[in-house]
């Protein structure tokens, strides 16, 4: 199940507000998701998971609208239509420990309305093979490593070839090789479908995402191409032989030289900014604006 073209918008959220008691988790967030991978960056507690939950129809916002595949996702029928085209990997996917990997994905397949046993089992085998767990499908969940469990949860999200895939920090706990495999998989999955990927891995965003959204304190601070986010730090990244106390961030690299992000002194040797530099600059700008 895929979107028909790159211009298709799978989900459009407008002015979403969500409060947990006195805390405003989302404060007028607007977001548009089309084909390809959209990265969601932000500090801990910024509202990323809450935003994913709203888009995944797990929680209902206090205000604003969410439209998915042409339906009002906050209405009953619209919510059901979205759920039928959704694959969701929560930040903390729980498991029934006594289930095998196969049984767990089979259970989720039933929740996704795949009731014909032979077709369902074929689909379970397909998604488990997709995440490279063909050989481990008979193992109990409690016997699998954290990385393998994460792959099982991803397999469950891929049941039914969803048109919208929401992944909340899917690469947490994975080793570099597994992360690379996931990255390859996400790149493939982004072909012809909308993928919303929340992550702290800026390299994932740089290598995978067509669009990156930065959220902080419940508000969208940036929406654009990863290169544009990196561009926010243009002229603000430099290197020197010693620490620069006034810099926003300063660290000694493996070569022994220091890399700084912030306002450079005159004559500094400027470096090409990365997306991480852009993110740090953006967060600092917001903090500065907040103080002024």
């Amino acid at each position, binding site marked *: 199940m895929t979107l028909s073209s790159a211009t298709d918008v799978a989900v459009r959220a407008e002015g979403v507000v969500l409060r947990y008691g006195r805390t405003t988790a989302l404060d007028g967030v607007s977001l548009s998701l089309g084909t390809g991978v959209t990265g969601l960056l932000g500090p801990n507690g910024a509202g990323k998971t809450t935003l994913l939950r709203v888009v995944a129809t797990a929680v209902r916002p206090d205000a604003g609208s969410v439209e998915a595949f042409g339906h009002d996702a906050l209405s009953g029928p619209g919510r059901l239509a979205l759920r039928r085209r959704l694959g969701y990997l929560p930040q903390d996917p729980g498991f029934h420990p006594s289930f095998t990997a196969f049984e767990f994905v089979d259970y989720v397949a039933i929740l996704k309305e795949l009731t014909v046993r032979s077709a369902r089992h074929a689909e379970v085998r397909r998604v488990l093979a997709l995440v490279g767990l063909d050989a481990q*499908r008979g193992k109990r969940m409690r016997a699998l490593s954290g990385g393998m469990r994460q792959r099982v949860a991803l397999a469950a999200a891929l049941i039914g070839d969803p048109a919208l895939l929401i992944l909340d920090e899917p690469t947490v706990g994975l080793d570099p090789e597994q992360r690379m495999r996931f990255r390859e998989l996400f790149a493939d999955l982004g072909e012809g479908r909308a993928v919303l990927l929340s992550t702290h891995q800026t390299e994932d965003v740089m290598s995978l995402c067509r669009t990156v959204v930065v959220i902080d304190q419940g508000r969208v601070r940036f929406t654009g191409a990863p290169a544009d986010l990196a561009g926010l730090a243009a002229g603000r990244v430099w290197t020197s032989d010693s620490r620069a106390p006034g810099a926003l961030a300063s660290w000694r690299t493996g070569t022994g030289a220091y890399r700084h992000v912030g306002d450079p002194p005159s004559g500094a040797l400027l470096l090409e900014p990365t997306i991480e530099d852009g993110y740090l600059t953006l967060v600092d700008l917001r903090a500065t604006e907040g103080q002024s």
Partner: protein
Amino acid sequence: MSTWHVPDDDLRRYAGRGLAPPLLWSTETHLAACPGCRSRVAAFVTVDDGWARLDAALDAPRPGPVERLLVAVGVPDHTARLLTATPALRLSWLAAVGVTLVLTALVAHAVNPTVFLGVAPLLPLLGVAASFGPGIDPTYEITVTSPVHGFRLLLLRCVTVLAANIMLGAVASVFLPGFTAGWFLPSLALTVATLLLSSRVSPVFAAVGVGAVWVLVVSWAGPLPFSTAGQLSLLAAVALFSVLLARRAAVFDVLPTRRFR
């Protein structure tokens, strides 16, 4: 015998499980009556297909005793599988409920039948509290965002838990001095009250609260809830709580935001 035989292409697709109804049905009917086509279809079943099917059969989840029982009484296999994830339907849980009921019945036999009537309705309450909800069902977030309506799954699990407890309660009633079903309506009323309260607080809090109120009522009123007037009042309570619960059904379709503060 018919002169018509299934074309090779259809037999190949049949062997590869790629033939769709209604062609599938007519082919199966024909194969049952035609030895020639049966021998031809064998040629299209490759060894790899056979291994793949064997592999698939070995992969298929092996249903446990409760799941097998549910299927045996006519519950569709996919529904039975959804129910197996309910802690209160595990054999260990049901065994614990059964033992508790029998012991309570024996105590009631020796002391006072009201002991059994008071305790029996509390057990399904615990089962319901352990059936659904954040912190109870580890896959709750995935469940809530699935197309299966949360309220439907909640009712499915609760009805099954209640039915299992009622059957165990009926068996345990045999140990009482005189058979009594006075615990049945309280069980129903307390369960529906717990579900209703679960739309506002966590199922565990709801069960504890409702259970505490029930203990106070029985301690204060003695056998009154099990008299005709008491039972009619409980029946009215079941009807009222059910209507209110139906009106709160949508609440179970999303995560309770109070948990995620």
